[in-house]
């Protein structure tokens, strides 16, 4: 399978990123962005040590991020391992919050396709609304694009009604041009969302990588009319970063993509920073973490 190589100049990309980061988002536009950021969050816990109690805590935070102020929206989804999906689904049953599950031998993807498909089916049966899969990076880097494509297509099928996010693990891909190629590949093969990282290695989401992926989505839409979503994950800890990403989405894709249906943040500690910024905007006072729950 031959993939088009789009030439990308990394210095030029960085310059566009710098311009985007120089946007100054204040007052009403900042509050609007913070609201959006919360509604776009996938609160995540993906540790070997995730007990039932840990998952319960996360779901509670998802439903009630901060009770001191009215009109704080709830997040878009929680993201857990497949064997915690059922519990999460139960706790969140009366809310609008989705349950996303990682699958396909997350995070490495180093297993047979059969096992990975079973992993997906298990998560779907347990009630997952969304599946976050990983691509086979080794195959990609050795040029076996056909294999990577087939895997995604079959996993998409196994997802049934659940929507599929394809994690490219951009930190392992080595160059922006590879990121672009992997993005195009994933979308051709049926991804509903393309996602940067598992969050288990460094670097995770970076602004140049996200820019390239948003451009890929824009061009794919131009070619096919399909609207694919995007999720940066890992390393997004501050509201400032989240808002910069929102500026990027607005200026590359347009306001149509500024919705949790098409853009998510994969984050855990981001929520409290967004809440602190929110309260600061409302009260004028810088906040302390002591006043925000740290589940």
């Amino acid at each position, binding site marked *: 399978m031959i993939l088009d190589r789009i030439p*990308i100049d990394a210095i030029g990309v960085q310059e566009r990123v710098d311009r985007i980061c120089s946007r100054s988002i204040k007052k009403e536009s900042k509050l609007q962005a913070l609201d959006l950021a919360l509604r776009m969050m996938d609160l995540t816990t993906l540790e070997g040590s995730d007990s039932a109690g840990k998952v319960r805590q996360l779901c509670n935070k998802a439903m009630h991020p901060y009770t001191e102020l009215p009109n704080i929206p709830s997040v878009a989804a929680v993201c857990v391992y497949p064997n915690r999906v059922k519990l999460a689904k139960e706790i969140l049953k009366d809310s609008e919050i989705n349950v996303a599950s990682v699958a396909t031998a997350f995070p490495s993807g180093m297993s047979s396709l059969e096992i990975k498909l079973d992993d997906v089916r298990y998560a779907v049966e347990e009630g997952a609304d969304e599946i976050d899969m990983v691509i086979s990076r080794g195959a990609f880097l050795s040029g076996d694009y056909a294999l990577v494509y087939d895997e995604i297509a079959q996993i998409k099928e196994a997802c049934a009604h659940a929507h599929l996010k394809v994690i490219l693990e951009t930190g392992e891909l080595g160059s922006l041009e590879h990121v672009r190629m992997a993005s195009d590949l994933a979308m051709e093969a049926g991804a509903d969302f393309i996602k940067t990282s598992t969050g288990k290695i460094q670097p995770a989401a970076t602004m140049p990588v996200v820019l390239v992926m948003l451009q890929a989505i824009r061009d794919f839409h131009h070619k096919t009319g399909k609207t694919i979503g995007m999720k940066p994950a890992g390393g997004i800890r501050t509201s400032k970063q989240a808002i910069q990403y929102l500026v990027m989405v607005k200026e590359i894709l347009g306001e149509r993509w500024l919705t949790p249906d098409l853009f998510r943040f994969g984050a855990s500690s981001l929520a409290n920073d967004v809440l602190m910024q929110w309260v600061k905007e409302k009260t004028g006072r810088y906040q302390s973490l002591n006043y925000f729950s740290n589940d």
Partner: protein
Amino acid sequence: MPIHWEYAHAPESTDHVQYEKQYGLFIDGAFTHYDPSKSFDSLNPATRELLYQCTQADEKDVDAAVKAARKAYEEHWGSGKGSTRGKYLYRIARMLQERAREFAVLESLDGGKPIRESRDIDIPLAAAYFFYYAGWADKLAYAFPAKKVTPLGVCGQIIPWNFPLLMLAWKIAPALACGNTVVLKPAETTSLTALKFCELLQDIGLPNGVVNLITGPGQTGEYLVNHDGIDKIAFTGSTGVGKKIQQSIAGRNIKSTLELGGKGAYIIFEDASLNEAVEGIVNAIFFNQGHVCCAGSRLLVQEGVADRVIELLKQRMATLIVGDPLDKNTDVGAINSQNQLNTIQRYVDIGLEEGAECFQCEGNIPSSGFYFRPTLLTKVSQSSTVVQEEIFGPVLTVQTFRTTQEAIDKANNTPYGLANGIWTDKGSKIFHVGSQLRSGVVWSNTYNKFDPTSPFGGYKESGKGREGGVQGLAPYVHLESNVEAEI
């Protein structure tokens, strides 16, 4: 459900910034009194409001300034130690860094360029030029091997309104480094940062007369050019005025450097990184409102990718914010003056008359000042007026080409020769096309990049001489053969 998300105004604070309402001239280390009998107004182009008033230097004033410069030159500056000159220049650089924000705000208030540009580019780069040339002051022997290097004397310098403080730095830094003294005339519409700069010179203790400032309109410049006490004239501005200056100095044994107009070609090959190439266009012609002599104002795009490039460009243009220069989110600020605004409009009208099609950004632009929307003119040809002549505004003409040779020929087919840009993924093509382009600057896969170490200047009617780099020293020295060195 999609939302509408607009950026709120993010005004840069101005309450820490100080400037006078009325200014005199700066001669022999001191400000003269503002003279209401020969004053001129300077407006804020974003609001059309009066910002401050200046004194017009007349022939007597110019004479006083040149005499002060001559005195400083003869008494110590021209013969003193290079390391001392270097230390003064380092002080200037450092203090510009310390006062950077104030200078940036004043630059935007006075000239109309967005605060983000003055803050992130103009002011830091001005400081960098002083820093670079400070280091040359005691190393001139390395710049001119086997030559005995001496300064020229008194330099008259005339600068434009598009990068006021930066152009001042480009002129003053190398002149002083080489041991010359200076009489500088800023542009009539942008004197403020130059005047503040003279206050800075007082604060760092630069000896009297080394730098003198005469404000005024074109006439003041003429007095300076015609003064017999200058050894050199350095001018940045239009080709028309440049030619007049050349005529005025003919036969008078005065050296000159001229940085004049341009009509740069921006060449996009089909194998270019298209997204970055489109971003580069924004750099090349829309930032600084297109008031850039080396602007890439003629897009030459290979036919196979032309439609896609235009589409991407229009999408990018839709995200450009035209507005108040002091808003941190503004991408395209105010046009410098009513005159310039009229000129730009006139050219676009001519373009339409000659059959061009016009695309402009939609969205709000302020009505309070001089503003012009970023504009694309398609359906033009090599002979169109808008393709031949420099517009000096945010207007890009669009032409296609098919072969590399065609691109080169079209790019060179102009009396100008300041800068061109090449976008391609192929290294050998960069070197090949670059070596064929007749311009003093070739930008490959980038545009409008400046650095004090990088020489800048034009071929043909874009001027002569270079500013920046080692080559930027040559216009400010006299070279004699060094008999000992020639073994």
